[in-house]
């Protein structure tokens, strides 16, 4: 597909801000949505709106068929073994909370939970809460000076036989990538339960559950060209089946009496209440959209664009880059040397450039880098070289104003 045509599928990108055309470099926070996703959700509300799994009427039947078809789509998308291994949640954060809560009965006082220093808060706080409930101990896996996970330190920590290892596939703040296949193999060798936060990876990398072989993998719809309010918890069936439901009620039950309740089987057991039906349908369209792209070509294009962005930033001078490696995914973190990230963000926004500035919900990472925050420019399938050039031009003018 011609790239201009692909970009034209994203209506939000065709607007001006304060007289400047929008330059959207905040895809890691949330991606823009193609027309087909927006239209699929609108069509559901126009024609098929009904609750799933319950009523005997045709609308409900259509909604249920569509909703469950997306589960099958996801199963094949991430190469899960069974459709019951795909649980719809409202996002990465809920997915991790469900796992951390659901494992409570498996964790005892003194157990160790290893977490990634580059993790965002959603992959830290639920584990802290689990530790509070059980008396488990949290240990962060340190980073090397160039902001990669310190493999030597990781190996050392594994000798202490952690009960849980929670990693990110790609760091949301930095775009650095973890070698998850080998990290998971090592964790499994010492008997740890493993979870990977794939929120920043799923739209960019080939994510294969059989290859990664983790117990849990979680991601959000809105970072993969789908809607907000929907996400996925993938779990290896045997382990997923032992999670205590965090939410009870609604269709997660089989029978209820005032004496006792019998829970439903997977996946319903972990999908209490009315699910985000329109959002799941939108997510299905986002998958169709992703699958319509030439995968290898798209990945190569994104890689070249990100490397170009890293290089242009380096060339600009007076820029501090954090963990910028050639194999990073989607994002680059930087500061204009000596300047506050918020000043940079405000002056970029004034020129129609949307980037994220702050701690990126990864305060421990910022602490380990010794900074209060930074700016992050991130790209998606619709990003082009012109976006990068405009961003660099704007940043040049910001630099002139601030370093004046």
């Amino acid at each position, binding site marked *: 597909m011609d790239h201009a045509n692909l970009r034209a599928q994203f209506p939000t990108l065709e607007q001006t801000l304060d007289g400047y055309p929008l330059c959207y470099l905040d895809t890691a926070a949330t991606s823009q949505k193609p027309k087909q996703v927006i239209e699929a959700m609108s069509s559901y509300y126009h024609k098929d709106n009904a609750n799933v799994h319950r009523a005997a009427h045709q609308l409900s039947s259509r909604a249920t068929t569509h909703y469950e078809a997306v589960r099958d789509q996801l199963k094949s998308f991430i190469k899960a073994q069974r459709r019951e291994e795909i649980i719809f949640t409202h996002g990465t954060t809920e997915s991790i909370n469900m796992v951390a809560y659901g494992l409570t009965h498996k964790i005892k006082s003194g157990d160790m939970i290893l977490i990634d220093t580059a993790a965002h808060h959603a992959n830290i706080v639920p584990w802290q809460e689990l530790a509070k409930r059980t008396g488990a101990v949290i240990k962060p896996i340190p980073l090397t000076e160039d902001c990669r996970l310190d493999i030597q330190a990781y190996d050392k920590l594994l000798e202490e036989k952690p009960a849980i290892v929670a990693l990110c596939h790609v760091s949301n703040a930095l775009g650095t990538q973890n070698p998850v296949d080998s990290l998971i193999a090592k964790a499994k060798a010492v008997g740890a339960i493993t979870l990977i936060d794939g929120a920043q990876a799923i739209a960019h990398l080939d994510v294969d559950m059989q290859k990664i072989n983790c117990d849990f993998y979680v991601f959000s719809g809105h970072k993969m060209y789908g809607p907000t309010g929907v996400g996925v918890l993938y779990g290896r069936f045997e382990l997923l089946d032992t999670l205590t439901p965090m939410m009870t009620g609604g269709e997660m039950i089989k029978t209820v009496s005032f004496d006792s309740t019998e829970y439903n089987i997977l996946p319903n057991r972990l999908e209490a209440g009315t699910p985000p039906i329109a959002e799941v349908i939108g997510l299905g369209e986002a998958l169709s959209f992703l699958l319509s792209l030439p995968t290898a070509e798209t990945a190569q294009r994104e890689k070249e664009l990100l490397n170009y962005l890293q290089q242009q930033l380096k060339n600009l001078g007076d820029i501090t880059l954090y963990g910028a490696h050639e194999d990073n995914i989607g994002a680059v973190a930087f500061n204009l040397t000596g300047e506050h990230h918020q000043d940079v963000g405000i002056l970029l926004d004034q020129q129609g450039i949307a980037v994220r500035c702050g701690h990126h919900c990864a305060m421990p990472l910022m602490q380990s880098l010794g900074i209060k925050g930074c700016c992050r420019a991130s790209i998606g399938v619709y990003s082009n070289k012109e976006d990068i050039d405009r961003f660099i031009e704007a940043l040049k003018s910001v630099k002139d104003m*601030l370093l004046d």
Partner: protein
Amino acid sequence: MSQLAQPSTAAFLALSLDSEEILPLFENAGSWQERYRQIMLLGKKLPKLDEEFRVEQAQVRGCESNAWLYHNEIEGKHYFIADSDARIVKGLIALLLTACNGKSSDEIAAFNSDVYFDRLGLTGQLSPSRTNGLLAVLKAIKTSV
């Protein structure tokens, strides 16, 4: 904030932001770049708050950057000292202080920031509702009097 260690009364009175001098610079600015330049120059007129006063209790919540605010009432007028580690926010705070420093409670209560920022040509990007934190500083000023 009264139980906090406070900068001296002299420090509060020393802050001079003459609105007659400052406001024309904004009103006459021809471009947004020039307005931002003036904002940052104005920020430089606010003295840097000593480390000992950059404490959590004086921090204004809701700012992406750190901002600290101190208030003192001297002979029925309100005076403020503030600082931020981001330049634009600091400049914007200076603009708020220009409007509020040395004023009575009634004057501060009646202060309409929308009208003020509109007059300065800052309605778009830099109005308090769009600038993360500025609204929080304005609220802190209004509630302290």
